[in-house]
């Protein structure tokens, strides 16, 4: 039998495949937001991970202080974080659009320190648990593996949001404004489209996506001030591998690298933390614009 040949029990393999897919769907949702923000605003949003963390924390605070359950938080937290993000865009980021990328990167890196520092100050560095919603506790024994309900839900929800975003951008009228703005915003504005407002809303959309992912992650990982920092580095690698040009590319690359990471954890655990960066280095050598990048 194949599994005996590989020397790996199937349960372990499929469990890691599932974890890989769940992580991959998080990478996909985050790198998609990064790509959309970079395309429209010309800002490399280093604070994307911090806003993902803020999404998880806001959900925790809503539950802890106001007794607001997971399902409401799944909508409320992204809204709250998006409003905060849009205020940031108006006050700070909108002043950087005409400058080199490095300024946006540095400014958003500063934001990371501020946001994460604030949460560390308020809540310390130890993680806080977030209970799995009651209806999604337990799981299915599929014979070859145990499928926890919540993880199955997270995978479906994250992918649904990713493909929803893809459909919105690639197939709708408002999405055509976004694509046009990414290509030539100055001309789009000369046609009568309020491009500054569009940029604010685009940032809000990307940030809401990050916060939504954060809420999904809360019951799986602990809610922790540094949870965003750990993931954003990987997400940047995903963006480099996928290339900035394509929404679908971001989704596919995110999932694929999540799975690659999961499998590496089974076969050669020592490399699981670095495999994505090894892939990134190889892609940079062979195809510098990324697998799906346009140039």
């Amino acid at each position, binding site marked *: 039998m194949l599994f005996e040949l590989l020397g790996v029990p199937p349960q372990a393999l499929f469990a890691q495949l599932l974890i890989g897919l769940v992580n991959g769907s998080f990478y996909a949702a985050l790198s998609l937001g990064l790509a959309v923000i970079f395309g429209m605003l010309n800002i490399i949003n280093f604070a994307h991970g911090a806003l993902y963390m803020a999404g998880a924390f806001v959900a925790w605070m809503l539950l802890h202080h106001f007794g607001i359950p997971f399902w409401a938080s799944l909508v409320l937290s992204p809204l709250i974080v998006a409003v905060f993000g849009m205020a940031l865009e108006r006050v700070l980021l909108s002043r950087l659009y005409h400058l080199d990328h490095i300024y946006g990167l540095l400014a958003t890196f500063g934001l990371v320190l501020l946001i994460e520092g604030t949460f560390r100050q308020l809540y310390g560095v130890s993680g806080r648990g977030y209970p799995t919603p009651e209806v999604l506790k337990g799981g299915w024994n599929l014979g070859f593996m145990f499928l926890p309900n919540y993880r199955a839900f997270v995978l479906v929800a994250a992918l649904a949001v990713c493909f929803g975003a893809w459909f919105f951008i690639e197939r709708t*009228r408002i999405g*055509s*404004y976004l*694509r*046009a703005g*990414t*290509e*030539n915003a*100055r*001309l*789009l*504005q*000369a*046609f*009568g*489209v*309020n*491009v*500054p407002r569009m940029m604010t809303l685009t940032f809000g959309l990307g940030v809401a996506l990050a916060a939504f992912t954060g809420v999904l992650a809360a019951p799986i990982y602990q809610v922790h001030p540094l949870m965003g920092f750990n993931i954003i580095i990987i997400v940047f690698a995903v963006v480099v591998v996928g290339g900035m040009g394509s929404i679908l590319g971001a989704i596919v690359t995110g999932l694929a690298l999540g799975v690659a990471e999961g499998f590496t954890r089974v076969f050669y655990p020592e490399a699981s933390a670095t495999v994505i960066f090894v892939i990134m280095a190889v892609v940079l050598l062979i195809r510098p614009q990324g697998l799906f990048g346009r140039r």
Partner: protein
Amino acid sequence: MPPEAQASAAAAMPALEVTDLDAHYGESQVLHGMSFSIDNCEVVTLLGRNGAGKSTALMALMGMTPPQRRGSVKLRGHELIDLPSHRIARLGLGYVPEERGIYASLTTEENLLLPPVVREGGMSVEEIYRIFPNLRERAASQGTKLSGGEQQMLAIGRILRTGAHTLLLDEPTEGLAPVIVQQIGAVINQLKSRGYTILLVEQNFQFAATVADRHYVVEDGRVVDEIPNDQLEANQSKLRDYLAM
């Protein structure tokens, strides 16, 4: 004022009145006190050499930044100089950029539907397809897969939907075959008869002569001469000097 009086007052003032327009990219100034005006339903060209500032003038009228601009631009009496370009477009100024500005990530039809309708009186998509039948056949193609001529038709077609009454066309004949140039000329004449006001940037004055009422000659970022179209023949040699042909 009652609406008719307002309309007649609007008709009495120039469609576009440009006074002492300066424009610069950073340190380098391109327009130096450019002044000219266009009446309603007129077709007027800016003729001049490469680098004279014709395209910059259109961008400055449109409020696109860069360039930075100073001076006065009035569209039917509305001062535009301090408005952002999306507000200017919404007052009825339509822009066809040099190089056409067709979006590669949009299909032909998406390109056509991209500029929002800014006021009543624009053409329907059906009417635009009747003027440019090629575009209907290519509706689902990627915008930049069209031929140069088709792209130019798309660039003109997409601002006819918006209800803009004053059109700025930047070298619509550049790089096109003579047959297509003729077709574009016919469309401009058709638009004129429908009551559009058109400011055309051209280097090809043979073409300009077939569509325009008047010509302004641009040199070093200012208007240096004005020639009515019926005196173009008489001014041929002067014009050749201006354009250094």
